[in-house]
């Protein structure tokens, strides 16, 4: 398909064609992503509703399916309130700096073998670097709002994100050790073979810690003290309204999807089929059945959807952590466990422990 576009655009200079194609790829990724974000909000309200024995939104459209669109339209037409005495430049910059890295991180995410915008060598590091930038939006927003609640929320959230980033980084080092590569695509292919080969088995503690740190990184329940409604109203974005607010929302949900996708790519074999090595080879390759059971993007999306559901499930189930307990968990529990497990993984790699590293 790319070649067809390329030839259709051949009247333009070469550099421009490359640029256009890159832009097209970005659109092809971001539009479905934003759609997914919109429907994740609906899914959240529905899932939590059912868990709490309610129905959830069901008025707009059939079974409430148009609810996200109604929300979006509402937010678009609301007034963006700019607080007096707030630093306007930073006030606007805050949401932009939140959404920018949240979207930029997707550039290196592979959806299938070779299906990635930028197949760079150190993509794992790139993701870590980009997600670590998101905290600026939060700090700047909290500070620029000139409001105590927003400031407190920003401090809480920034401290939390920075703390859990360490555990998360260590978990990623484990993945890097196991796969021997920083490239996400190669990490997925390193898990080829069968379900047993998936990194969630040799890296089980890191897998759990990565996912839980992901909850904390995205400021989700039970680590959502940063917006703790009962204490500081809504945290860093309390002064934001309309589009500026929805930008924060978009970034948060895009990050949730990213974490879910990365967890499935790094620990659950990404697009690899769970039937590999169990069903005979012929069933996985040929025909419609092969398309369904063989490796492919649908497996990645399915696994991602499972983790997204886990996010919602956890939110509906667990009470909120207290702030000092969050810090304690991050620094005194997760970081030591990850460090110890790194040694274990290194020993397994050096000792060629099967079935993963032989």
């Amino acid at each position: 398909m790319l070649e067809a576009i390329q030839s259709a655009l051949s009247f333009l200079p070469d550099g421009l064609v490359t640029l256009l194609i890159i832009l097209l790829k970005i659109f092809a990724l971001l539009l479905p992503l934003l759609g997914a974000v919109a429907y994740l909000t609906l899914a959240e309200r529905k899932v939590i509703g059912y868990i709490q024995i309610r129905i959830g939104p069901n008025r707009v459209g059939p079974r409430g399916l148009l609810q996200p669109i109604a929300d979006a339209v509402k937010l678009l037409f609301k007034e963006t309130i700019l607080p007096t005495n707030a630093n306007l430049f930073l006030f606007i910059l805050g949401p932009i700096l939140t959404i920018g890295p949240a979207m930029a991180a997707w550039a290196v995410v592979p959806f299938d073998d070779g299906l990635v915008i930028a197949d760079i060598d150190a993509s794992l590091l790139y993701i870590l670097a980009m997600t670590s930038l998101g905290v600026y939006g939060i700090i700047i927003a909290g500070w620029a709002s000139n409001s105590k609640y927003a400031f407190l929320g920003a401090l809480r959230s920034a401290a939390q994100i920075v703390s859990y980033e360490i555990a998360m980084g260590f978990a990623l080092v484990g993945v890097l050790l196991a796969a021997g590569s920083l490239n996400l695509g190669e990490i997925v292919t390193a898990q080829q073979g069968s379900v047993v080969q998936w990194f969630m088995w040799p890296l089980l503690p890191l897998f759990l810690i990565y996912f839980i740190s992901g909850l904390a990184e995205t400021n989700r329940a039970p680590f959502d003290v940063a917006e703790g409604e009962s204490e500081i109203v809504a945290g860093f974005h309390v002064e934001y309204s309309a589009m500026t607010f929805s930008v924060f929302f978009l970034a948060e949900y895009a990050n949730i999807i990213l974490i879910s996708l990365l967890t499935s790519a790094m620990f659950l074999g990404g697009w690899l089929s769970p039937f590999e090595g169990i069903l005979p080879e012929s069933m996985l390759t040929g025909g419609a059945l092969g398309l369904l059971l063989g490796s492919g993007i649908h497996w990645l999306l399915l696994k991602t959807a499972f983790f997204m559901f886990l996010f919602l499930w956890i939110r509906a189930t667990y009470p909120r952590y207290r702030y000092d307990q969050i810090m304690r968990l991050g620094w005194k529990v997760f970081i030591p466990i990850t460090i110890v497990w790194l040694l274990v993984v290194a020993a397994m790699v050096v000792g060629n422990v099967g079935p993963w590293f032989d």
Partner: protein
Amino acid sequence: MEQTIFYIFSTVLVLSAGAVITVRNPVFAALFLVLAFFTSAAIWILLEAEFLALTLVLVYVGAVMVLFLFVVMMLDINLTVLREGFARYLPVGLLVAIIMVAQLAYIVGPARFGLDKFPAPEPHGADYSNTREIGLVLYTEYLFAFELAAVILVVAIVAAIALTLRKRVKTNFMKPEEQVLVKSKDRVRLVKMAAEKRDDQQAPND
């Protein structure tokens, strides 16, 4: 193309580095420093040093500057006090700066470090991995320095804890592991007793 990108980034880098020391608001200064780090990371990427560039973003932008910004935001910095000596020391400072810049421009200028003085490094093949190469020399040739850097970090941790950790006497700590183990009968005592009658005739809800 590459040169244009380089000049764009380096202009931003130089301007933001200048802004770090000239802007009035310390928060802006810290943010400009972030911008400076970010653009220098971009320049490193142009040099095919993507591992270092990403690490710079991850460590300096993503962690160090966040904490820095944290402190700057929470401090109540009195700018007038900070700027008191500024005008007085400006001539001397400028003189020193000009001498330094002139000297450096003369010595580190194109006459000695120009592009024609050094052969351009050979471009690496597509399978060249910056990360792998750094890893290989870091753990072999520079092993001693690498270990020393680790020791320095340990000293930094020891120093930071020794200088800041204070036993607060009045804080009540809760132990979650004990909290979890609490049973209702540890906290609530159910007492069976006969009903009593109040002596006075006041309404019960006063």
